[in-house]
């Protein structure tokens, strides 16, 4: 299956995700970039730290790619997540989906980022001027 599913420490580059999904038989590419915001719930954020269970996270991202194939009919999916300490404005996650038509590309891209947030074993820690806090999601337990 085509596709690129990685958890990495280096800066994420949109070109890498685009190249992994583009092709002459596809007319549409939708992408999503999560970037580090300088605030959360009214509190000033200085930087973020992402931690992962990398081997399982890459398996889960690949699984999301298979779900996209089943639901939207395209296997041209790239999902990249960065870990480590990120500064404000840096990209923490990148999703790119290419498809023949735009509706599938746009819907699949939105689906993939929702699924990533619900099931990828990755955690975010927010750092403030006076401390830090782990974020924990509220999604249902992904166990089958």
């Amino acid at each position, binding site marked *: 299956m085509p596709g690129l599913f990685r958890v990495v420490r280096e800066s994420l580059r949109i070109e890498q995700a685009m190249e992994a999904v583009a092709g002459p038989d596809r007319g549409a590419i939708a992408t999503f970039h999560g970037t580090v915001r300088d605030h959360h719930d009214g509190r000033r954020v200085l930087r973020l730290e992402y931690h992962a*269970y990398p081997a399982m996270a890459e398996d889960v991202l690949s699984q999301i790619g298979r779900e996209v194939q089943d639901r939207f009919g395209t296997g041209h999916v790239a999902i990249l997540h960065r870990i480590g300490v990120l500064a404000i404005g840096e990209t*923490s*996650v990148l999703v790119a989906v290419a498809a023949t038509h735009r509706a599938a590309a746009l819907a699949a891209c939105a689906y993939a980022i929702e699924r990533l947030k619900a099931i*990828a*074993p*990755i*955690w975010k820690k927010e750092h403030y001027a006076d401390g830090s806090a782990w974020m*924990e999601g509220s999604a249902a337990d*992904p166990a089958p």
Partner: protein
Amino acid sequence: MRVSVLLFARYREAAGAPILEIEVADPATLRAVWDAVRQQVPALRGEARPLLACNRAYARPETVVQPGDEVAVFPPVSGG
């Protein structure tokens, strides 16, 4: 039966270590493994929603752990 349990994020900080070696009666379920982890790490005793994984896939507490399985416990995820 000896099981190595991978911990992540807040659980790792609570335990002060990325891996715990625990002893559980054979055959052991993931629930028994988690109970043993909580026994060893008092800070995790109040955890209501641990996620459990076996061989890099989410698994239910009833799952029976085989020797050599890669077992992990961690809090609700928050990537993206």
